[in-house]
């Protein structure tokens, strides 16, 4: 018993006294050594502290209800990231070994490997006897399979039905109504401003639907031949969709002092295509390539404005194949 205890004691003592034998050989250093930088370490700690403070501040701002907290949120998160960024740059520039190493660029080409790859591919096809025929067959099959895989893309939309682009909601006799659905009365149309009108009872989210209505002195009108009756009492309607890039014609230029200011015009705010309402919507400035389509008007017995037919041309942006009028 005592011997056992003694043996245990000796073993414990030896364990306590045991020191690892010194390494025979230290492996060579890989990373270059450098001097300690206690002040940089202190700064690093300070930066981490600031970042944590910002993070906590964010949570606090988030938790308490402030009426407009976006700026504070941004400030907290932004500064948190900024402190962290500074901490890491400090770490990279002051605290880790500042060493430059060099390495060989990889060889531009490895001819042996290239030859091997070519060999593998070519030798794998050794057994073919009708190589050209097979190539043609593979190509044909590839084409057929691709056609089959691509065909469902036609379901994306009515891509062959370009007639959908010609459709307009305007018919002879359809009333012009305003935003609220109230019919436009000829007597209410002033020469001082312009009006947006829609076809009564038709969907409005359609490039062909909205029209601008303006009133000019009938003496001023120089409409193209055949449109003499389209502007009763000098009231004109044009498609509100620019023929250039489909923005709404949202500006009406009306000179307040005619002798020195440019003439009246309908202007698109996107690329400043400018159309003359007096001459049938012809382009007088800007990139548009064709005039604004005009909608013929008539005034019914109640004094309301009605369409007297359809547009003079395609409303909306041009596309290949459209009539250039």
């Amino acid at each position, binding site marked *: 018993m005592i011997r056992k205890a003694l043996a245990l004691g000796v073993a414990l003592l030896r364990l306590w006294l045991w020191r690892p034998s010194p390494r025979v050989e230290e492996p060579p250093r890989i990373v270059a050594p450098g001097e300690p930088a206690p002040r940089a370490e202190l700064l690093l700690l300070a930066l981490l502290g600031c970042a944590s403070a910002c993070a906590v501040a964010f949570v606090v701002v988030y938790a308490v209800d402030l009426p407009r907290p976006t700026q504070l949120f*941004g400030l907290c998160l932004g500064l948190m990231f900024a402190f962290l*960024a500074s901490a890491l740059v400090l770490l990279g520039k002051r605290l880790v*070994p500042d060493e430059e*190493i060099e390495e060989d660029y990889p060889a531009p080409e490895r001819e042996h490997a290239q030859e091997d790859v070519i060999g593998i591919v070519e030798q794998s096809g050794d057994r073919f006897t009708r190589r050209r025929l097979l190539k043609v067959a593979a190509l044909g099959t590839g084409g057929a399979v691709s056609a089959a895989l691509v065909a469902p893309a*036609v379901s994306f*939309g009515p891509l062959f039905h370009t007639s959908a682009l010609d459709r307009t909601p305007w018919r002879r006799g359809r009333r012009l109504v305003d935003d609220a659905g109230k019919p436009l009365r000829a007597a209410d149309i002033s020469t001082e401003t312009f009006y947006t009108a829609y076809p009564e009872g038709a969907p409005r989210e359609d490039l062909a639907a909205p029209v601008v209505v303006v009133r000019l002195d009938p003496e001023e009108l120089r409409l193209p031949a055949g449109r003499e009756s389209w502007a009763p009492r000098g009231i004109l309607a044009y498609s509100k969709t620019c023929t*250039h890039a489909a923005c709404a014609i949202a500006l009406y230029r009306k000179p307040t002092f005619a002798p020195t200011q440019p003439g009246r015009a309908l202007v698109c705010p996107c690329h400043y295509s400018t159309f003359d309402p007096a001459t049938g919507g012809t382009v007088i400035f800007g990139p548009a390539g064709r005039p604004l389509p005009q909608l013929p008007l008539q005034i019914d017995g109640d004094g309301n404005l009605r369409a007297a037919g359809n547009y003079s041309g395609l409303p909306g942006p041009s596309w290949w*194949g459209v009539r250039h009028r």
Partner: protein
Amino acid sequence: MIRATVRFLDSRAGAAPLLKKALRYVFPDHWSFLLGEVALYSFLVLVATGVYLTFFFEPSTTQTIYDGSYAPLRGQQVSEAYRSVLDLSLERKAGLLIRQTHHWAADVFIVSIVLHLIRVFFTGAFRKPRDLVYYAGLGMLMLALLEGYIGYSLVDDLLSGMGLAIGYSVGMALPFVGANLMLAIFDGPFPGSSSFWPRMYVAHVLLLPLLIGGLLAVHLLGIVARHHTQFRAKPRQTERKVVGLPAFPGYAPRSIGLALAVAAVLFLLGGLVQINPVWLWGPYHVSQGTNGAQPDWYLGWLIGALRLMPSFDVTIGSYTLVPNPFWGGVGFPLAVFGLLAAWPWLERKVTRDRGAHNLLDRPRDAPWRTAIGVGILTWVFLVFLFGSSDRVYVFFGLSYEGQLWVYRVLVWVVPVVAAGIAHRVCVELRAGEHVERMRALAETEAARERALGPLGATEPPPGAPRPARRGP
């Protein structure tokens, strides 16, 4: 801890040799090399903030009546998409911060890509063996432009709706296929069917990010496989040896620091600098438009080109073949990207230099490349500048018509002049360096003569130190 982790990774994945290589990968140092990294880190911020936004956005044009907290719009007919963005911005805590940070990140993303492209072009970094990396980069830039455009179009506010109408018209203007393509994409004439918004959405949050991510992988792997380029700033830096900081421990903290700095700037912008306050624009309806509409900066060159075009459609008889928006919206960007894409090939053809290059040129080392690059850059920049001419009219009172005519001349004249000046500057700088080199040579020789006396001067100096080319 470290030992156990490394042992685990090596025994399970055989990762030790790879890790060792990765940790000691060499990054040559120059400030301009950070531009690409800024783009990468903005992309990460974009993905992170974008994922957050998907939890609140509803990609639907179903019309509804707005009844949220923003009084001026209450009672108006708006789309679910627009309503969800308003709710996210005005009702959700931190929603506006994330949305604005996302928008700013998109702008910064494309700025840094463009600056990176300029750096790569003028230093000849696109040359073999990194041309594949260059093409992947060009592809990412194109996708990023489209991604940004679709991103702000999704909101369905008045401005984005006008932008979408312009995009539709530009698409319609493609000869022979435009109308059909647009009918397919929009599922009918503009503004399209109810399927169109989910299509844009899936393109914005899945397809385009995946494509950008895929090209990013090609871009980064391509760089790692051939290593980074470097300037010849030190004599040790040659075509065969790359010198710089190891990825670990020297470069990693700096690069992660840069990532965090990018995040810092983006969140500060997102929190403090308002961007695209969509509640002020109101909802989009086909019949509505507003003056002073400006797209995000990276589409400025396209709006400028669309506005610069003179009024004409290409017609056959009385039928249209090529509508006007084609030139500004398709032709112009196609020309710019075509030139950029053809450049490595063109340069190989002209210089007959088919070799691999690991050392970068300074812009002056390739005067013709620099001259043509400056020319293209000036061309695009002037068109971009014209995109803001309506604002210039409002702020400075310069007539819009007058500016239009001046720019129509300037965009062709100034690039040529700028290219000429750039070429001359490069040539002169190089001549100056030659003089410096000669003088240094003469001075060492003179010093040697003085040391040896008049008799020793007959033979040329054996090891006259050739001064190394300085870095930029």
